[in-house]
């Protein structure tokens, strides 16, 4: 019964996704396309939830539907919201797309059935992850365990990726400056409601940060949520005030600090001649060493992500609309 229900949700959400993308191919108003993309991300987050990927769903909802959409709207403010309607060399495009599609259809033909517990994916490495997480790491959320310990090196790379995105955006757009006149209009309802809301968002961010061992969440999601609290503040009360709370100039340093926290935590194990990121070296008891290690690297990820996301937002929103000479 439950399985059928899950399948039903799965089928309808995927159908939704196709409709949304189809609509965005047709649309020429970029605002609409952006909003459609936000919806697309949100629906795919629901789909991830339906497919048991709670952490992924959380991230996709926060990043895809939340931050990316805000970013695209900020970018549209600085560019043009309409697309010139013309379809150029669509024959070539169709050819490439059909070729790719054919290769994909060819490839998926002998995939194991979806959800088949005997598929190699579920037989080879995954059972060991679940078993070892219980034995050696002793936290309930296996995804966090794999993310921060088993494949901690990937996650270190991930933190560097977001850091390098911050560096890239900063190189391209600079930190931006805010003139006093850019204050938003007075809106009492928003002011009253948003203030306690921001407090709630920040508390929720902290909860997600430190509850990642037990449930969905972790440094990355927490960083995005925390940053979105400040983004909300700057949207409602004006960026000038937000920059007074968190000055733009310290954000790159905070992001770098986040990366360094992660890296140095990894290097700690070298002191006792264990490999990079071996958290067993952090404490005399291996399990508590793992706990400490995961806590530290998650803190690094959270800090790096929070500061980079906010930094990128500042870079876009603080840039003046320049008209081409």
């Amino acid at each position, binding site marked *: 019964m439950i399985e059928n229900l899950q399948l039903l949700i799965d089928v309808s959400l995927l159908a939704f996704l196709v*409709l*949304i993308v189809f*609509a965005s191919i*047709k*649309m020429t*108003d970029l605002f*609409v396309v952006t909003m459609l993309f936000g919806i697309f991300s949100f629906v795919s987050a629901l789909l991830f939830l339906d497919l048991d990927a709670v952490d992924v769903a959380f991230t996709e909802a926060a990043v895809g539907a939340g931050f990316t959409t805000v970013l695209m709207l900020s970018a549209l403010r600085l560019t043009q919201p309409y697309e010139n309607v013309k379809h150029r060399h669509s024959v070539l495009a169709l050819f490439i797309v059909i070729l790719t599609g054919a290769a994909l259809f060819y490839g998926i033909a002998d995939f194991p059935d979806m959800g088949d517990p005997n598929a190699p994916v579920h037989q080879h490495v995954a059972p060991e992850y679940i078993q070892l997480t219980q034995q050696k790491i002793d936290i309930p959320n296996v995804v966090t365990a794999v993310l921060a310990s088993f494949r901690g090196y990937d996650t270190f790379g991930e933190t560097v990726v977001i850091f390098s995105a911050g560096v890239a955006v900063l190189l391209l757009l600079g930190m931006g400056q805010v003139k006093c006149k850019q204050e938003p*209009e007075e*809106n009492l*309802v*928003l002011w009253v*409601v*948003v203030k*306690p*809301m921001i407090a*709630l968002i920040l508390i929720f961010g902290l909860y997600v940060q430190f509850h990642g061992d037990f449930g969905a969440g972790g440094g990355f999601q927490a960083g995005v949520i925390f940053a979105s609290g400040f983004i909300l503040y700057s949207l409602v009360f004006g960026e000038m005030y937000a920059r007074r709370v968190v000055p733009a100039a310290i954000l790159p340093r905070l992001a770098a600090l986040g990366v360094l926290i992660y890296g140095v935590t990894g290097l700690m194990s070298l002191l006792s001649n264990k490999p990079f990121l071996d958290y067993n070296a952090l404490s005399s008891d291996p399990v508590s060493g793992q706990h400490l290690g995961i806590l530290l690297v998650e803190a690094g990820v959270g800090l790096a992500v929070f500061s980079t996301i906010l930094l990128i937002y500042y870079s876009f929103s603080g840039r003046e609309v320049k008209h081409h000479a």
Partner: protein
Amino acid sequence: MMIIDWISDICLLLGGILTLTGAVGLLRLPDFFTRLHAASVTETLAAMLLIIGIILDTGFTLDSAKLMLLILIMIIANPTITHALCRAAANGGNTPEMETGNPLQSSSQTVSQSSQDKQVQTETEISGKEPK
């Protein structure tokens, strides 16, 4: 126990019906403000009824406590969002249709402003119908 189950079912059913009416309203109503009105039904009352139905169904656990928090946030946030949207639309030069007596009779053709036309077009295309 029976009664609670009944109440839960009624809540879920009512929530479902309201969601549906909200969706119909979103598609059929003539201008931005009336549509927003329809949407706000879905995002406040319907969503709340659905969540209450679920809470009653699962009984009092940690999950249902979280759901109650969710209701609280929805009560505060959703009307505010609707308000902010309305204001933004009004400030952007989008005025409500006052002249036509019965708003249901004014079709999308009579709505003159281009931004509204676009809105209509968007939603009809999503729903798979041809725009007029």
